C-alpha cells in the first residue's frame, strides 16, 4: 500500500463553523462542518470534520477566528518599543473577553519605514480567550491529536500563498472580512472586520496599510471570497487592480494553516509544547530504537548465520582432523611395526655367528693325528675383550672364540706339528702351546702332556 505524502491538517475553529484543509499528494483537501456554539460538542464536531474528507495523520495546526480572537495592528511609540508586550496588554486591560487574566496575548513586531510611523514599532497584536483555548486543547488531547501550533486564523491566512514586495490582500467570508498587508512573506498589518466592510472603510484601511508599510502605492489587491463581478466593481471603486491569487483559494485561513511555515504568533500552551516535545522525543526514540533493533537483528541474524557456517565448518574439520589423528595413530603403530621388523632384520644379519661351530670342531678334531689324544676341549664364544664394554651395544659385536685343548701327545714334536696344522688352516689368528711337559704314563710309557690355546676371530 502506497503511503500518502501529506502535511499537517489546518483546522479553523470559528463561531458555528469548523473548517479544515490539508495538502495530500500535492492536492489541497478541505472540509467544513457546522459547529455548535456549545464547546462540549466540539469533540463530536471535530470528529465529523476530520472524517468529512480524506485527511491523513494526526498532526494539526489550529487557527481560531471569530469572537474568541482579537487581532489588531498597532503603532507602538518609540519610548515603549522595548516593552511592546506590556503596551499591548495595557490596551486590553479591563476588556471582558481579552483582559490579561482572561486571554493569552501575542505580539509580532516589524520595522516601519513610513513617515507616519517613523521612529515607532509596527506591531500585530493578537489575543485568544484562555477558556476557549483550554477547551480546544483539551478536546484535541482527548482526540489524541498532535497540536503543532495554535494561531489566530486571520494571521495564518497570510501564508495561504506567497508573494513578493508590498502586498495587500482582502479575504471575504460569511463571518466577516479581513484585510492583510505585508512585505514579502512577513505580515505587518491585519484588520478583521465582523460582517461586510464598507467600500469607504476598505479604502481607508488600504491607505493606512500603505502608509504603515511605507509603500509608494499599492496598485494591486488580491482578494478571495469575491465573485468576478464583485472584483471588477471593487477594482473600479478603489482605482486599483483587484484579482484572485494565482492559486485557487476558497478558504485562505485553512490553506494558510495547512501550509508550511512558522506562525506569526504561536498561542500553543507551554504544557502542550512540553507534550509535543515529549511526543517528538518518543517518536524519535521509537524511530531510533526501531532502526537500531532492525540493525542489531540484522547483524545478529548474520552473526548467527556466520556461527552456523563456522559450526558446520568446525564439524567437518573436526571429523577430518579425527580421521587424520586415527591415521596418525595407525601410522605410528605401523612405524613401530616396521622399526621392529627392521630391527629383526638387522639382528638376523648381525647376530648370526661369523663361523660354523661344526666346521671349527671338525678342524680341531680332524687335524689331530694318532699321536694326539684330547682329554678336554673347551670352547668359549665371547666378546672381544679389546672392545670397551660401553661400545659393545653399537652394531655388530666383534667376538672371538677361545679354545683350550688339553691332552696327551706322543711327544713334543707331535704337539708342535698339531699346533702348526691348526695355524695353517688360517681359521685361527693365534695358536699357542701354553704348556708341554714330559710325563710318565705308567707301565714305563712316557708321553707329552700339553695345553694348547687357540683363538679365532668372528662376529
Amino acid at each position, binding site marked *: 500500500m502506497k503511503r500518502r505524502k501529506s502535511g499537517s491538517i489546518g483546522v479553523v475553529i470559528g463561531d458555528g463553523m469548523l473548517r479544515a484543509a490539508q495538502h495530500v499528494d500535492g492536492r489541497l483537501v478541505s472540509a467544513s462542518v457546522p459547529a455548535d456554539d456549545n464547546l462540549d460538542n466540539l469533540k463530536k464536531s471535530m470528529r465529523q470534520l476530520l472524517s468529512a474528507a480524506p485527511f491523513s495523520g494526526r498532526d494539526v495546526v489550529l487557527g481560531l477566528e471569530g469572537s474568541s480572537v482579537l487581532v489588531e495592528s498597532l503603532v507602538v511609540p518609540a519610548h515603549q518599543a522595548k516593552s511592546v508586550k506590556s503596551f499591548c496588554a495595557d490596551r486590553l486591560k479591563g476588556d471582558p473577553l481579552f483582559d490579561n487574566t482572561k486571554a493569552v496575548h501575542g505580539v509580532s513586531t516589524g520595522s516601519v519605514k513610513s513617515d507616519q510611523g517613523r521612529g515607532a514599532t509596527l506591531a500585530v497584536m493578537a489575543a485568544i480567550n484562555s477558556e476557549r483555548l483550554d477547551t480546544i486543547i483539551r478536546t484535541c488531547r482527548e482526540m489524541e491529536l498532535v497540536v503543532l501550533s495554535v494561531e489566530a486564523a486571520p494571521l495564518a491566512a497570510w501564508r495561504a500563498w506567497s508573494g513578493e514586495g508590498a502586498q495587500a490582500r482582502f479575504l471575504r467570508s460569511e463571518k466577516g472580512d479581513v484585510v492583510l498587508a505585508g512585505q514579502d512573506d512577513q505580515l505587518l498589518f491585519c484588520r478583521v472586520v465582523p460582517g461586510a466592510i464598507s467600500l469607504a472603510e476598505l479604502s481607508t484601511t488600504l491607505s493606512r496599510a500603505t502608509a504603515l508599510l511605507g509603500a509608494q502605492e499599492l496598485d494591486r489587491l488580491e482578494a478571495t471570497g469575491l465573485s468576478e463581478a464583485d472584483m471588477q466593481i471593487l477594482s473600479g471603486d478603489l482605482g486599483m487592480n483587484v484579482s484572485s491569487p494565482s492559486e485557487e483559494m476558497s478558504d485562505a485561513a485553512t490553506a494558510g494553516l495547512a501550509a508550511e511555515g512558522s506562525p506569526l504568533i504561536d498561542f500553543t500552551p507551554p504544557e502542550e509544547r512540553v507534550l509535543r516535545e515529549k511526543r517528538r522525543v518518543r517518536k524519535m526514540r521509537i524511530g531510533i530504537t526501531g532502526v537500531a533493533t532492525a540493525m542489531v537483528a540484522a547483524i545478529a541474524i548474520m552473526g548467527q548465520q556466520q556461527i552456523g557456517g*563456522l559450526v558446520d*565448518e568446525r564439524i567437518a574439520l573436526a571429523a577430518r582432523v579425527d580421521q587424520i589423528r586415527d591415521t596418525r595413530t595407525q601410522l605410528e603403530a605401523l612405524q613401530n611395526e616396521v622399526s621392529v621388523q627392521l630391527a629383526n632384520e638387522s639382528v638376523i644379519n648381525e647376530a648370526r655367528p661369523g663361523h660354523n661351530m661344526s666346521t671349527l670342531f671338525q678342524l680341531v678334531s680332524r687335524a689331530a693325528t694318532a699321536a694326539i689324544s684330547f682329554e678336554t676341549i673347551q670352547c668359549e664364544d665371547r666378546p672381544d675383550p679389546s672392545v670397551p664394554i660401553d661400545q659393545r651395544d653399537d652394531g655388530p659385536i666383534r667376538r672371538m672364540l677361545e679354545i683350550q685343548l688339553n691332552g696327551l701327545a706322543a711327544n713334543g714334536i707331535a704337539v708342535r706339528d698339531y699346533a702348526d696344522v691348526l695355524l695353517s688352516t688360517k681359521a685361527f689368528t693365534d695358536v699357542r702351546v701354553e704348556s708341554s711337559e714330559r710325563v710318565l704314563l705308567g707301565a714305563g710309557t712316557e708321553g707329552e702332556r700339553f695345553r694348547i690355546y687357540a683363538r679365532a676371530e668372528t662376529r
Partner: protein
Amino acid sequence: MKFGAHIAVTGMALAVASAGVLFPIYDEVAELEGEVTSLEAEQGTGGAVDAQYMQLQTEKRDLEERIAGRQFRLLPDNQEAHHNFETRLLQLVADSGLNSVRTGRGKDPIGGLYRHLDWELVVEGAAGDLDRFLISLESIEWVTRVQSLQVEPGDEMRRITMKIAVMLETKGNA
C-alpha cells in the same frame, strides 16, 4: 532535558543494549574462528599423513617379503615358541646319536643388543655324534649360537656340555 540530550541518552542505552546482544555473538564468532583456524592448521600439518601411511605400508610389505625370503629367522618371544624350540633341540640331540644327560633352560630371555634365550645341554656321545649335532643345529631356520662347548672324558663316552643361545624377535614399543 533537551531533545538532543534525550536522543543522546536513548542512543547510549541502545548502544549498551546492542552491545549486550552483539558481544556474545561476537565472542562466539571469534571463538569459533579460532577453533576453525586451529583445526585448519592441524589439518594442514596432517595433510601428508595418508601418503606417509600408504608409503610405509608398502615398505612394510616389502620388508616382510624380504624377511620371509631369508634362510634364517628369529624365534618368536613366546612360551609356545620357546617350548617348540626346546623340543626341536632335544630331537636334534636324539637324531644325532647323542645321549641327553641334562637339559636346562635359562629362566628369562637375556636383553642387550641381541635378545636371546639360553639352553644348557649336557650330553654324552662320540665326536662324530657331536659333529652331526652341530651341523643339524646350524641348519635349522632359527638364528642360534653355540656360546660355549666343553668336551670332557666320561665313564664310557665323552661328556659334552654346550650352552646354546637362540636369538629372539625384538618386541615392539606398543
